[in-house]
């Protein structure tokens, strides 16, 4: 009793509180409760149809009646339904006032609660005092009683609209009338029988049934993704690249409601609910789960990484340790932890390599099978490592530091190609431009990223599952070991570009990985050259011993630059048989071309297979100009570009020095050109290399000629003057002036040979001509490489090894943040990316959310690592907030899509407003969603409506009327009263409003 004595009841009457002042003695109110408890208990036990008790309280006598309209003896378990009534009777003339009734009701509530009785109690009313009806009572719910089969459907009196359920002592008119009278008493200023008829004419009542569906499958709700793609009907949940959104269905309950007749229509007092003639309006309501930070799995992961990020910056500011140092501090000696696994790892990788090479080999089939089992294993470990378990606080299950076995499995899934190389969605089959595309097409970003599905992208996303900085660093150091292994074994790093085009938009780590891949490729090419060349030389030696001399003569050796004149002289010595020899060489080459593969052409200077400048013939030879294979300058990563720009823009540097630095490539091109085009001259080179400087218009040629003659004259004049002073110096300059490569050959005509050098190229002492003079005919395989792949790869690996923790996490974080935008904005049918990276939806609110997120990231995320002192974690909250918004909304929408599949109108309404009406053509699919678990669903649905065997979870009666308020003379206003009955609760609420809906 003491427990309940502190109970304060707040009713809707005039008095505020029923106060207990004396705590030492049981008050009369407490006595009343005790008495009520007794009655309730005995009535629950006996379940007699009707009995009466007399209670005294506050000098009034009340009679309590328990009524069960159905005879208890005939009650069978299948139709457990009861009307329970605790009826209060008061003296006719002197009924209790509202305050007293409230007190009584509160006593009832407590008594019912104390008895764990879940039967609702209604306080009956005096016929003349309907206004005394206090509409709110509820039965305390005890989970224990729910488990028992003692589950009651509570029926309100008015429910007897359905004739079949009408008990003998009820009649329709009376039920309705009672309800209406309650309403009338509530809204009328002066209850008067004369107004009653008028009130009745204006009143309407609608019935609303609600069917509730909840307890959704916690995994199935995400399957909407598969609905749009016709190919895969069942998307494997394990396929997900990261966990995002709610761990369970964000929809708590769906309500399927029917109102008959629709509120808008006029009401017929006695209507048949089941009749198809009565108009019905159907609608759906959705109740979403209350969002909470701990429910957004992706945000949790991102925040984890961010915490690591801040930690790493803090470490930087303290003592600037290397990754290795940190790992040692944590006793995670890298070598010792990997030793047991390293052997198996390498074995696995060579296996994997074999596999890719012999993909079509049937013998490997079994091996493949084993591997695919391996993937499955990986997925499961990812899952336990990852965030998804049944527990809500998903991150709790992520390890602080992954074990070596977990690491191994992470690495394995990273470096294994889970996709068929021929799959159009395989990373290697998607154009680089698509992969490098900005996350949102209409917005640029300065934040560096990594292509979706690339190796570093996957690495970053896996880090979402590792909860600590040390864990990430450990993972990274293992990762770098793998990269080193790839370089040492000359195997391309999977899912990483190998082209020379390094995108500025990618993060430095990705650029470095691409650089390593490019180096692997170059090393391959280089080795192929070496091999084919050896082959070529040996065939030549067998066939023709003289060839050796010949090739030496033509400058095949690798000696340092030979002065210009001797080379030319050497060629001159070759004289006429030079051509013949070359032709003979041609024949041999053609033979060897048949025998060898295409790479042969690299070695072959004048082969027919070479690309040609069509229609353009060498000035002094009868051959088309061959376009030589030239050396690549090689890609540059961001840091290299910065260094390079710094060097080049050094103001101190003279123009000559700058030129010198850059003529290396020009020299290389010239050498290749000379090698591919024996007998060529400078003009030929210009025709290919700088076409604009080859003037072919007759009038321009003429003016250049005139100008050149003028210049020559000036030169001569100067020379004359100079000669007068110093005559000996000019002897040395003269040979350069006589820059003649024709060697007595006659310049041929036609085939693009008509033309002359532009004025700026015509000068003899330009750097172009000087370089040309220096250039020897050397194939690119023998040239000093412009790009040192060994050095560059070593540099790149050393960068990866020595990266600072803060730099590493900064890049990981940048990749994650930008990738999220890409993934959530990519729409499946508009993207080249694999479907798991396309969560975007063609849905305006979603697009806005992603755009907002991306803007926030762009504004908030620094492009450089900030100082520890300047970091305010709060500044980053908007990022996480918008990310949570995305997760929340996407989860909701996906769940709706899963359930309503193609009913886009309904989905949109539910998403926006939480409810949606149902049109005729949508009715069937929605009903199926709610009632498909019923066995003979099809049969029952034939009745056009709802299956008769299903009881609605909630029944509601909406009574509307018009009445003047607050005074009799006031304007007549619409009013509504809701009577709401659910298994546990009965509420009546009135609303006074001007709205008529």
């Amino acid at each position, binding site marked *: 009793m003491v427990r309940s004595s502190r109970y304060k009841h707040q009713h809707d009457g005039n008095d505020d509180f029923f106060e207990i002042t004396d705590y030492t003695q049981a008050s009369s109110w407490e006595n009343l409760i005790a008495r009520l408890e007794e009655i309730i208990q005995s009535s629950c036990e006996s379940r007699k149809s009707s009995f009466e008790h007399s209670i005294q309280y506050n000098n009034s006598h009340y009679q309590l009646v328990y009524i069960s309209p159905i005879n208890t003896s005939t009650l069978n378990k299948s139709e457990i339904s009861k009307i329970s009534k605790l009826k209060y009777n008061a003296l006719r003339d002197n009924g209790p006032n509202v305050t007293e009734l409230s007190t009584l009701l509160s006593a009832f509530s407590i008594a019912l609660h104390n008895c764990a009785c879940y039967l609702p109690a209604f306080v009956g009313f005096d016929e003349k005092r309907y206004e005394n009806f206090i509409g709110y009572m509820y039965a305390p719910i005890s989970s224990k009683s729910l488990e028992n089969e003692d589950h009651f459907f509570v029926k309100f009196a008015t429910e007897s609209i359905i004739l079949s359920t009408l008990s003998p002592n009820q009649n329709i008119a009376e039920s309705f009338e009672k309800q209406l009278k309650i309403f009338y008493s509530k809204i009328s200023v002066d209850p008067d029988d004369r107004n009653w008829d008028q009130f009745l004419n204006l009143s309407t009542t609608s019935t609303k049934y609600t069917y509730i569906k909840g307890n959704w499958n916690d995994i199935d709700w995400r399957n909407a993704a598969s609905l749009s793609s016709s190919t895969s009907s069942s998307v494997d949940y394990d396929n997900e690249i990261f966990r995002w959104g709610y761990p369970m269905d964000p929809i708590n309950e769906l309500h399927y409601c029917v109102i008959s007749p629709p509120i808008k229509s006029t009401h017929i007092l006695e209507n048949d609910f089941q009749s198809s003639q009565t108009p019905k309006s159907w609608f759906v309501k959705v109740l979403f789960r209350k969002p909470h930070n701990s429910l957004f799995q992706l945000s949790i992961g991102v925040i984890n990484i961010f915490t690591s990020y801040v930690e790493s910056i803090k470490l930087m500011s303290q003592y600037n340790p290397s990754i290795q140092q940190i790992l040692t501090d944590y006793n995670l000696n890298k070598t010792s932890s990997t030793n047991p696994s390293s052997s198996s790892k390498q074995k696995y990788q060579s296996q994997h390599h074999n596999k890719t090479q012999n993909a079509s080999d049937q013998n490997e089939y079994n091996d493949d099978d084993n591997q695919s089992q391996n993937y499955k294993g990986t997925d499961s470990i990812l899952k336990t490592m990852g965030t998804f378990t049944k527990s809500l606080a998903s991150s709790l299950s992520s390890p602080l530091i992954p074990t070596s076995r977990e690491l191994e499995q992470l690495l394995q899934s990273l470096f294994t190609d889970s996709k068929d190389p021929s799959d159009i969605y395989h990373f290697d089959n998607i154009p680089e431009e698509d992969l490098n595309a900005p996350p949102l097409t209409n917005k640029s970003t*300065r934040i560096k990223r990594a292509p979706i599905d690339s190796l570093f992208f996957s690495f970053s996303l896996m880090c979402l599952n590792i909860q600590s900085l040390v864990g990430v660093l450990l993972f990274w150091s293992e990762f770098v070991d793998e990269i080193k292994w790839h370089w040492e074994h000359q195997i391309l790093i999977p899912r990483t570009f190998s082209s020379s085009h390094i995108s500025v938009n990618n993060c430095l780590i990705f650029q470095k990985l691409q650089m390593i891949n490019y180096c692997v490729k170059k090393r391959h090419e280089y080795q192929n050259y070496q091999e084919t060349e050896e082959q070529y030389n040996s065939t030549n030696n067998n066939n023709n011993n003289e060839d050796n001399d010949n090739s030496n003569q033509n400058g095949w050796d690798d000696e340092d630059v030979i002065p210009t004149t001797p080379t030319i002289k050497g060629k001159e010595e070759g004289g006429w048989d030079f051509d013949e020899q070359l032709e003979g060489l041609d024949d041999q080459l053609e033979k060897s071309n048949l025998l060898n593969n295409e790479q042969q052409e690299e070695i072959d200077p004048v082969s027919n297979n070479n690309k040609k400048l069509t229609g353009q013939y060498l000035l002094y030879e009868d051959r088309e100009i061959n376009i030589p294979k*030239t050396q690549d*300058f090689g890609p540059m990563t961001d840091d290299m570009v910065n260094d390079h*720009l710094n060097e080049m823009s050094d103001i101190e540097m003279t123009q000559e020095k700058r030129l010198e630095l850059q*003529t290396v*490539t020009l020299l290389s091109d010239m050498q290749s050109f000379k090698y591919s085009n024996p007998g060529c001259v400078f003009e030929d080179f210009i025709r290919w290399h700088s076409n*604009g*400087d080859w003037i072919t218009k007759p009038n321009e040629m003429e003016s250049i000629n005139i100008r050149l003659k003028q210049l020559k004259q000036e030169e001569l004049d100067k020379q004359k003057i100079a000669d007068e002073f110093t005559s000996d110096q000019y002897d040395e300059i003269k040979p350069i002036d006589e820059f003649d490569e024709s060697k007595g050959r006659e310049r041929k005509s036609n085939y693009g040979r008509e033309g002359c050098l532009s004025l700026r190229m015509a000068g003899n002492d330009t750097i172009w001509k000087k370089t040309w003079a220096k250039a020897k005919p050397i194939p690119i395989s023998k040239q000093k490489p412009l790009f040192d792949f060994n050095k560059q790869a070593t540099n790149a690996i050393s960068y990866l090894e020595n990266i600072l923790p803060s730099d590493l996490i900064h890049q990981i974080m940048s990749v994650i943040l930008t990738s999220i935008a890409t993934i959530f904005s990519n729409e499946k049918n508009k993207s080249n990316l694999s479907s798991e990276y396309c969560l975007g939806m063609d849905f305006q609110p979603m697009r806005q959310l992603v755009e907002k997120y991306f803007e926030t990231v762009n504004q908030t995320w620094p492009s450089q690592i900030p100082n520890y002192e300047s970091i305010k974690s709060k500044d980053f909250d908007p990022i996480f907030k918008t990310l949570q918004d995305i997760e929340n909304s996407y989860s909701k929408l996906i769940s709706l899509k899963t359930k309503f599949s193609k009913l886009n109108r309904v989905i949109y309404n539910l998403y926006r407003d939480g409810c949606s009406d149902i049109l005729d053509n949508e009715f069937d699919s929605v009903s199926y969603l709610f009632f498909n678990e019923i066995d003979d669903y099809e049969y029952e649905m034939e009745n056009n409506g709802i299956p008769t065997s299903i009881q609605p979870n909630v029944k509601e009666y909406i009574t509307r009327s018009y009445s003047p308020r607050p005074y009799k003379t006031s304007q007549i206003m619409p009013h509504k009263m809701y009577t709401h009955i659910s298994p546990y609760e009965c509420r009546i609420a009135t609303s006074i409003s001007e709205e008529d809906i």
Partner: protein
Amino acid sequence: MEEEKQYKVLLIGDSDVGKTSIVKRFSDDTFDEEVLTTIGVEFKMKEVKVDGKKVDLCIWDTAGQEKFRALISSYYRGAHGIILTYDVTKRDTFENLNYWLNEVENFANRSNLVKLLVGNKIDKENREISREEGAEFAKKKAMLFIECSAKTKIGIQQAFEELAQKIIESPQNTQSSSSSSQQRQKTVKIEEEEPQYQGCSC
């Protein structure tokens, strides 16, 4: 003014359209018919006045030959302004602009990049591209447009000033240098105008 500012400008366009001549005229006020064909890139610093403030332009003059493309692609990074140049007497240099725009798209990494289209050699008589055609193309591709002649000086100074003006006006450049600080910044203070510089600009 405490803010230190320096802007990077890159000249691109086909070979022999006069990129180097334009830079020479602007920076040294000289003109040479036989200016050397650029190899790779050439670098010049020059001060211009914008709204009475002095701003330093780092001008990168590039080679137009396709063979140098790989070499110069890295110079696009961090550029605030790009001058696309064509020769009004050679239609193919105009038609190649699309190729250069594509290069800008691929290699330039600033979102608020300012592009200026320059038609050079208007002193010559055998014009093939009308002013209207150039202006229309510039408008279509959201570029500023100017015609000039490095030989006669017409439009040169104006081109660089207009470009500098636009660069300063674009929001991110004036607010903070945080995004650009990654690039090499030989910082030079923007000084209040000093009288001795008046009239010296060409």
